[in-house]
């Protein structure tokens, strides 16, 4: 299972206050000047029209996952969202993952909706 080991990199914490799930991620090593970083999210079944927001702890929106072409009841797959490398400090990065239900508000995704998160080092080319 692709994410079976990857989840170990992420400590998922649901916090009070701001909606969403805080994910604390650790890189296996420091980034070089020639590298960037992306966060990969493996999603489960999302209700039609629901979306996943990826934000920094300060609230900056990094990207929104909006499944398209997914059959009802089917898991939505894995998505990659670029992260500005300057957000990584001491090989660590914290993100807030939010399920946007639109008219029904925002909340933290469940374990079935967000199945795994990991960081990926990406060479700049």
């Amino acid at each position: 299972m692709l994410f079976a080991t990857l989840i170990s990199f992420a400590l998922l914490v649901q916090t009070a206050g701001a909606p969403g799930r805080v994910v604390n991620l650790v890189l296996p090593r420091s980034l070089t000047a020639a590298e960037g970083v992306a966060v990969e999210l493996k999603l489960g079944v999302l209700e039609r029209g629901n979306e996943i927001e990826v934000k920094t702890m300060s609230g900056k929106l990094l990207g929104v996952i909006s499944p398209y072409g997914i059959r009802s009841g089917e898991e939505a797959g894995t998505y990659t969202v670029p992260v500005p490398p300057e957000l990584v400090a001491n090989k660590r990065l914290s993100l807030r993952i939010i399920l946007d239900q639109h008219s029904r508000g925002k909340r933290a995704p469940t374990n079935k909706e967000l199945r795994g998160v990991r960081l990926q080092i990406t060479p700049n080319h």
Partner: protein
Amino acid sequence: MPHKNFPFTRRSFLKTSLAAAAGAAALPIKTYAFSPAQTTTYTRYNVMSEGGKKALQSYATGIQAMLNKHPDDPQNWFRNAFVHLMDCPHGNWWFYVWHRGYVGFFEETIRNLSNDPTFAMPYWDWTAQPYIPDSMFDGVRTPTYVASYDTYIHNLDVFTAKFRPSLEAYWASLSAAQRSQLNVRGYSTFQDMWNDVTGNGDPGNEAFATTANARYLSRTNPKLDPATAQDCSAEIIKAGLQPTDYYNQNVSLSFTSSKTPSHMTPPGPNTQFSTIEGLPHNKVHNCIGGVGPLGPGPYGYMTNFLSPVDPIFFLHHANIDRLWVSWTTKQQQQGYPILPSGSELAQLSDEQFLFYVRGDGQFVGPSRAADYLSTDRFHYQYEPGFGDNLQTSNARQKRVKTQVKGVVKANRATLTVPSNAVREHLAPQATALVAEVTVPHPSTGSQTREFHVLVGAPEGVTQADPTSPFFAGTVAFFGNMSHHAAGGDATFAVPLPKAPQAFKGLATTNATIEIRIVPANGGTQQPPLLKRATIRAL
């Protein structure tokens, strides 16, 4: 290396290679004017440019002509959208290439029906213009235009009466190969397919939309919402163009989404969406269709697989295709492959696309993905937009995609390499520059079988060990020399030293690299004469 049999944009390849050879810096796209190349027949303009505005006039003429076609006619506007519903790949590595074919044949249809022989599909660069162009709210360019659309999509009953009989007849005419592909898609019966038109009880899955609901964004609300604008932002697009592999099983390093058994394989738990498909592509579709404000559905056309009913679809996908062209050009500039190789290339290329309709209204019949891997089939190029000529400060200088050969004289090879390439080579963890040195086999009975390769060593230096800044490596011959044919050569790949002392002229445009070989371990025998030396980047 680019695939040798792949004729993709030879013109742009030549142009960019020359620019790299001259050491030209990447040019910001906004700083130069665009002149269509004389060798390309059609130009897909930015919809905001004068060329784009002119194209939109013909686009409207063509749309109306397609709307006027009988539902039995494959060129009918809605029948054309059903090609997408029945055949489009998402979440796999045929996403780009299938849509290139789909947009390309559609473009020929509009060219034909608008009587504009110059027509090419304009693109909507949503990074630069994160709003639907105002002109796309005029007349038939919006599916909410009652005068042209309502007779078909006033409500589902009207739509069903108009199209279901024609589509059932079409379904009955499908070949065994087409039916087999549709089975993979989950459409074993006509009703399976039709359930995605009606939603089959799930309003969010209803591909049909009424005229009033056909497009969520409007002339008074044309902007992509902030979340969608973020997914279309410069930083996301730059990241999406970064991968150097057409396909990589690690999705963050892959330009395309998952490799699947068929382009019809529906997305599922193991699907991995690449950045450009997963973020801007998907989010623009859903934003225009009203995901969020119209939840839980039904949504406008763009949200489901009848999305080509909305004319903005083709401008959106022209932009996606343009980004593929941008990525391809970047790959060529940097010396990376633009396609997979070997069996992977065969797997990609041989996939059958069976549902396209030509510009003259006839079915294309069986065609292969290979037919659309380049832009040559449709003879177009793009007016530049965001994403073209992007290079990060860390981008490799593309120098070594063409190998640099040395001049060999008296057992010494001298090579000239762009200094930028050497500086990058010297950076920690950078991809290495490698010398390929060719020497003859030592003669039978030779006691010296190992030789050091020295780079930039001062004249008097005849020995070096791995601690020396001039030491590149050791080449060794193995086995009984008598087994080697007389006069045979051997070529060794040796990474160049990571020491600036080994290179001359680093402060200038081109650095000089001198390579010698000497007997290893203090041997006194003369080394074989260096015959050739070449430098490549890994």
